[in-house]
């Protein structure tokens, strides 16, 4: 059932998703959908993408038994899906290689992207450099300040940075600005969206490019248990939700408990968080109907998270659907819990996780002690945390 590709009718996951966009974007979005459907099953496209994923990005990624962490917590065995080992340091490259190859086959000469933490921007710049394409990256000026190393990397990789000073100057505003650019340049421009959000077909296309994570987890867990076995719990962090949907989609309905972790920031009660599914309501933003953090008037509210990559007031529509159907449980971890998990994994395993992924680790830290030794937890370690060391140091020094 899960190997079959489910393609949502009208781009809807239950009631969520769809295509709420200015009319100028309808023809390019339709062109994108047609091209995607044509190429995704094209043997030469699949072979080319497969070769890039293997030899350029470094797939498959290992499933690592974090023995020290598991022993320290006492309880379930914790495994890490090491997306942090991919080229660029995050799962984002799975999607950017897929979309950049698609853009190239569509004959688009110019690629634009938005980025929050900078990981998607870096992965876009890398994929475009490898494929000989120009890229321009929109990034909120607040994010540029707190993710300086990634800005430098993007510039060195040849991407033109487009700072965004509107709104809260973070990811949501970078998406607004990228959409505005696309409206103005529909003919030659490909918008390489970085998460499983936006108008149809982006949520389904990004999911399909990221499902390699969950497909590999399934195979690797089965192999490690000597055939047939499945993980008891699989955890991933959720901002827009691309690593999580890539993790969950192939595992939904297999009996594994799936848990998505949102950023609770300073606590759900403080209003300073980015936990869209936990505390949001339905609405329409960035071309999709989904859960949103908004005020009583329907104005989108500002979010807070110690991790720039989770700092987004919306969430992929398929997650909204999974929440409604109960296929996945969505919980949250605070800044403090994430930073604690960040330090704990760094110390016990010698692995510095991204602050985003640290939210998922924090959930494993919470639940592992209550589980049996025979049980297995898999955490998608979506990225590495080199970019975050300064932020964590500031946080621990009390400068949050």
């Amino acid at each position, binding site marked *: 059932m899960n190997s079959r590709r489910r393609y949502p009718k009208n781009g809807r996951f239950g009631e969520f998703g769809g295509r709420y966009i200015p009319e100028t974007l309808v023809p390019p979005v339709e062109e994108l959908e047609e091209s995607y459907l044509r190429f995704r099953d094209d043997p030469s496209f699949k072979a080319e993408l497969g070769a890039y994923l293997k030899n350029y990005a470094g797939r498959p990624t290992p499933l690592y038994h974090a023995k020290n962490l598991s022993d320290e917590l006492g309880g379930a065995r914790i495994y890490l899906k090491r997306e942090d080992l991919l080229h660029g340091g995050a799962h984002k490259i799975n999607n950017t290689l897929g979309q950049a190859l698609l853009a190239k086959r569509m004959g688009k000469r110019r690629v634009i992207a938005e980025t929050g933490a900078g990981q998607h921007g870096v992965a876009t710049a890398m994929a475009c450099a490898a494929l000989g394409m120009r890229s321009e990256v929109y990034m909120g000026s607040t994010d540029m300040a707190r993710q300086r190393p990634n800005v430098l990397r993007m510039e060195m990789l040849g991407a033109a940075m487009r700072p965004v000073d509107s709104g809260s100057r973070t990811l949501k505003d970078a998406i607004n600005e990228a959409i505005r650019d696309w409206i103005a340049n529909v003919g030659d421009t490909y918008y390489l969206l970085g998460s499983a959000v936006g108008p149809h077909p982006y949520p389904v296309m990004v999911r399909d490019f990221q499902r390699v994570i969950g497909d590999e987890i399934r195979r690797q867990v089965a192999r490690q248990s000597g055939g047939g076995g499945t993980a008891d719990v699989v955890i991933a962090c959720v901002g827009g939700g691309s690593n999580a949907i890539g993790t969950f989609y192939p595992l939904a309905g297999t009996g594994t408990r799936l848990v998505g972790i949102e950023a609770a920031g300073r606590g759900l009660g403080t209003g300073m968080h980015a936990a869209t599914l936990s505390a949001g309501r339905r609405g329409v*933003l960035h071309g999709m109907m989904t859960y949103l953090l908004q005020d009583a008037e329907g104005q989108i509210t500002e979010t807070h998270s110690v991790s720039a990559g989770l700092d987004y007031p919306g969430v992929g529509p398929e997650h909204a659907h999974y929440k409604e159907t109960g296929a996945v449980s969505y919980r949250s971890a605070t800044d403090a819990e994430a930073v604690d998990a960040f330090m704990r994994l760094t110390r016990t395993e010698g692995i510095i996780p991204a602050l985003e992924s640290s939210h998922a680790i924090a959930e494993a830290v919470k639940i592992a002690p209550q589980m049996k030794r025979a049980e297995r937890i898999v955490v998608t370690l979506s990225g590495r945390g080199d970019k975050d060391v300064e932020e964590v140091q500031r946080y621990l020094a009390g400068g949050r």
Partner: protein
Amino acid sequence: MQAAGKEREEGRRAGDGDGSGSSGRIASKFAELRARNERGLVTYAMTGFPSERASVSAVSGMIRGGADVIELGFPFSDPLADGPAIQEASSGALGRGATFEGFLRTASRIRRANRDVPLVLMTYTNILYNLGYDRAASMISDAGIDGIILPDMAADESAPYVAAARRCGLDTIFLASPNTPAGRLRRIASLSTGFLYMVAVYGTTGVRGGRAGRRAGKAGSSSVAGYALDAIRRAKRTAGRPRTRLPIGVGFGISSPADVRQYVGAGADAIIVGSAYTKIIKESAPRDVEKNVSAFTRRLKAATRGAS
């Protein structure tokens, strides 16, 4: 088919609630303009920017200067179809605490002072979705507003919104773009009442869109792109033919009487000007807003008459 369409048009023109949803004020206005062989001028003001009072003065200036339809903007936090001028107006109005209730009070006030001028709300989908389309439509209609424009409401997603608007007799004004194919244009026109909003440029409001647009701007003294004029002619052929005779309004990036004359020459039934007003309103001293807006409106309106 021809006859049924004719009937529908007659009904709409008379505004007799034939199911086309038109409240009548917009349709009557365009009928009146047609009778005078004149084009319409649709003007936009963001309510609450730079203050509630200034935006109300601006609307008075527009009406005094001869505007035919008034678009009242209600701000959304993420106006992705808007350029810098309206983005700034949106965040300014929200910063001053704009609420939808407050907007409706302002609209009612404008309606009480002006019985006949068509009023159209322009905002984003989430504002109405958040209230529930039915509740939103009845509140909007009760405030004396005649129609709605949602730049991020694609025709494909519009069924519940259109149904709610129809129930309350509100016109639904959809946008079309120069790259909208003919079949889709017909569909958009069939969902539109009042008028069809033809976007003149590839880009957001207020700016000359993108690199193609800038090239067009450089080519001659006028900033009007050839593709925009073609688009108007195409829209006239598909949407504006006698069967439905849906008026074609052209907007985005129009700021001068010269632009107006070009679009009118290509067959536009109405010209829509927004960001240029936002700039004038922002730069005028509070007591000069009405006067300056009225003077600008007169110049634009003259251009809509001159070329016909």
